[in-house]
């Protein structure tokens, strides 16, 4: 159906023109015209319809209505009386009552008409009470009933409005509106509602801002394009938010600002206030969203406002804050990169940010792009030690190792004391040394280690590796001199003694090692010290020496250390001693599933044992796993452990073919398997105590 009234009228007129003697079309046209306020023409339509069909009740009803519209109510009443009596039609009866009410000024039976009469007379209180008498319905209202009910609610609201009961008025109108929406009605009084809401808001914004807000919100719901309501609502709510902020009600202020942002998502002030409030409330993720939106807006304005005092600095501050916050909230490198690249577009001279961008690109595995950024930075500001270090890292990632080394050398030459440069350069050289050892190129490995020691004369991984190489080449005196240098550099701490002792142990210089261990204990008889000495013994294959020192460590060790020692002893073929530590760990933390898991696993640490796994061992393993699973129940932090147990069980069922690498002895990360990646105590960093075990293992495998 057409919605435009003019079009609708034209169509109806055309229909009447084509079938001029049809009373029905004339009635429809008349009713439409009357609903549009054209009573005169409508009256002629109805009259003609009635002439054509004298028994047509609808035409009579229309005619009566057009008479009522022009104030000829008595005539309308007379006209309706005989028809309504015969027809028994509810519509006609209602219309007759309406006509009688207007003609006689008598109190009608219907609450709606009585209420309206009172309202017209200005008795708002009584009108409100009368209009409150709603008809009793035992069913969902029909279309007609909904129209009448909604109208009654509307005028009830109007009565409340007249009596200054604004809240009740709004409640009545809300009911009226609900009926209008649910029955998809278009009623004549609807267009008045907005004026009422605005009037209430204007009367109450100083005394009762909450009431004004409710009224403007209702107006806005009615007409979402109502700009006055939207503007005023924003102004008042904004002021309330400011007042809340000043009163220390941060949560309330933040809520209002964020709600207002729904209406004005591009409002800089709202974005900034919301971001600050969210930061104050510790809602960093929300703050990031607001800062990001603000940064986007400011970037768009950059060309126009670049010359405005402080604008560029404010934008830089914002970007800096945003990136920091994004990193704190764990934003992905992709998001960080997107943000920093967007900033670089308007701030291409931002050197630090360009370096950061290059770093992110490397993190995302894009060394070529990183290198391009670094080269641009170099063109802008020249080379610096840090920039060259970044370049070296990118080149290394690209496989251009010679270029990388050259860049590292330049960086180091530029700032020999720069720790960042040193750490990156030493790491790179360490990797090169490992590769040389894997290639059995001792000469190159020695050259690299010596370079490392020129960068840092007491860099332990280099000293450890070099000493071992010297020992292997029979250059005992040089090896010892090197290790002595390590001790002399830091003679008051136990670490160099233990580290040196571990190398001696491996190279069958037990007495020398014992002397150094004794000195270390003398300096610091700590749990960690005993543990590391025990570890050195375990790794050199001296289980007895390991137990001796582990026992001392176990007196005060925590669960993780106890487990580590237990596993070392299982590996060293000392299961009874290993059990002692596992049992101690169980006692120390009875809720920890790890000791049970490690104990369960101990029966199959040797792959051969899987083939000959005895029923007794299998039962013991299952019992321990079951206990671990019981302790893990409902604890999400042990999800990965749960999966590992399931994996081990599957492998037991599948036989040795399904063994994981750690059981076959060719996995370097078995510590991680047991303790997870978060365990700082057992990670792969160069150890403070003891030699780098990984490197020693590789060497023993790869070298002749």
């Amino acid at each position, binding site marked *: 159906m057409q919605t435009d009234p003019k079009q609708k009228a034209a169509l109806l007129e055309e229909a009447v023109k084509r079938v001029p003697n049809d009373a029905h079309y004339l009635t429809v046209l008349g009713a439409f015209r009357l609903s549009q306020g054209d009573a005169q023409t409508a009256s002629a339509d109805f009259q003609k319809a009635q002439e054509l069909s004298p028994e047509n009740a609808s035409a009579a009803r229309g005619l009566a209505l057009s008479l009522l519209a022009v104030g000829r109510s008595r005539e309308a009443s007379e006209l309706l009386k005989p028809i309504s009596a015969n027809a028994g039609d509810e519509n006609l009866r209602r219309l007759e009552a309406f006509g009688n009410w*207007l003609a006689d000024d008598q109190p009608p039976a219907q609450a709606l008409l009585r209420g309206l009469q009172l309202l017209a007379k200005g008795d708002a209180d009584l009108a409100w009470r009368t209009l409150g008498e709603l008809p009793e319905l035992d069913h969902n209202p029909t279309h007609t009933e909904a129209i009448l009910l909604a109208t009654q609610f509307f005028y009830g609201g109007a009565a409340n*409005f007249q009596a200054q009961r604004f809240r009740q008025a709004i409640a009545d109108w809300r009911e009226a509106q609900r009926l209008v929406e649910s029955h998809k009605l278009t009623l004549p009084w609807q267009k008045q509602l907005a004026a009422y809401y605005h009037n209430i808001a204007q009367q109450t914004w100083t005394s009762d801002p909450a009431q004004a807000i409710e009224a403007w919100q209702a107006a806005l719901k009615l007409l979402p394009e109502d700009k006055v309501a939207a503007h005023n609502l924003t102004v008042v709510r904004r002021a309330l938010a400011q007042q809340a902020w000043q009163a220390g009600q941060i949560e309330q202020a933040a809520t209002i600002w964020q709600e207002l942002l729904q209406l004005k998502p591009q409002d800089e002030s709202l974005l900034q206030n919301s971001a600050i409030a969210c930061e104050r409330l510790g809602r960093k993720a929300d703050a990031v969203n607001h800062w990001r939106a603000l940064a986007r807006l400011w970037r768009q304005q950059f060309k126009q406002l670049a010359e405005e005092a402080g604008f560029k600095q404010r934008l830089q501050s914002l970007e800096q804050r945003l990136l920091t916050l994004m990193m704190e909230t764990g934003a992905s490198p992709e998001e960080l990169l997107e943000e920093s690249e967007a900033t670089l577009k308007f701030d291409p001279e931002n050197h630090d940010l360009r370096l950061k961008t290059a770093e992110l690109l490397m993190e995302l595995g894009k060394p070529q792009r990183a290198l391009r950024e670094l080269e641009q930075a170099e063109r802008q500001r020249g080379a610096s030690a840090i920039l060259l270090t970044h370049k070296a890292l990118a080149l290394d990632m690209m496989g251009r190792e010679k270029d990388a080394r050259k860049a590292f050398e330049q960086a180091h030459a530029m700032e020999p004391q720069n720790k960042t440069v040193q750490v990156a350069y030493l790491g790179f050289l360490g990797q090169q040394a490992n590769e040389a050892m894997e290639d059995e190129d001792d000469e190159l490995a020695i050259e690299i280690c010596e370079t490392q020691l020129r960068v840092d004369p007491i860099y332990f991984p280099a000293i450890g590796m070099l000493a071992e190489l010297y020992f292997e080449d029979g250059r005992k005196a040089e090896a010892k001199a090197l290790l002595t240098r390590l001790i002399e550099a830091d003679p008051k701490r136990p670490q160099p003694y233990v580290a040196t002792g571990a190398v001696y142990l491996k190279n069958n210089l037990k007495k020398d090692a014992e002397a150094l261990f004794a000195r270390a204990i003398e300096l610091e008889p700590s749990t960690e010290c005993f543990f590391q000495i025990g570890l050195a013994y375990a790794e050199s294959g001296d289980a007895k020496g390991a137990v001796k020192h582990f026992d001392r460590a176990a007196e005060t060790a925590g669960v993780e250390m106890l487990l580590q020692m237990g596993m070392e002893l299982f590996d060293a073929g000392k299961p009874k001693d290993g059990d002692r530590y596992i049992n101690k760990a169980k006692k120390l933390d009875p809720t920890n599933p790890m000791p049970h898991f490690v104990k369960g696993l101990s029966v199959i640490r040797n792959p051969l044992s899987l083939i000959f796994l005895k029923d007794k061992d299998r039962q013991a393993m299952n019992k321990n796993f079951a206990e671990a699973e019981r302790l893990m129940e409902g604890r999400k932090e042990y999800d990965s452990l749960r999966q590992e147990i399931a994996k081990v069980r599957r492998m037991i069922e599948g036989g040795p073919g399904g063994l994981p690498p750690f059981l076959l002895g060719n996995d370097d990360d078995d510590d991680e398997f047991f303790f997870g990646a978060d365990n700082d105590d057992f990670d792969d960093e160069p150890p403070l105590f003891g030699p780098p075990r990984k490197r020693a293992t590789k060497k023993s495998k790869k070298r002749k």
Partner: protein
Amino acid sequence: MNLPFTDNPYKTLGVERSASEAEIKQSYFALIRQHSPERDPEGFKRIRAAYEKLRAGGDRAQTDLFLIDERFSELKAEDLQAYAAAPTPLTLETINRDLVTLEAQLLFEEAVSR
């Protein structure tokens, strides 16, 4: 003698957010004359702290970024827009007009659906 200090350094120095460096400096000097370290050490400290945040070479941009925009805290009539229409007065005539329109609509809907 104490001033009603706030966390907002602009308010503490009594200048607008858009104040130039010269205006900030001028206001700062005027204030420390009144609140010298000897007479009002606490006041002097806060004026000094506010000035540090805004002075040339300081990080005014950072300060600005974390200051709530307080331009809208006071509710004024002139900030509000007036709605063009007032509610129609409820007279017998207006009510009658509404009811006739409503009845005409009902009649139209009924006739159309027939």
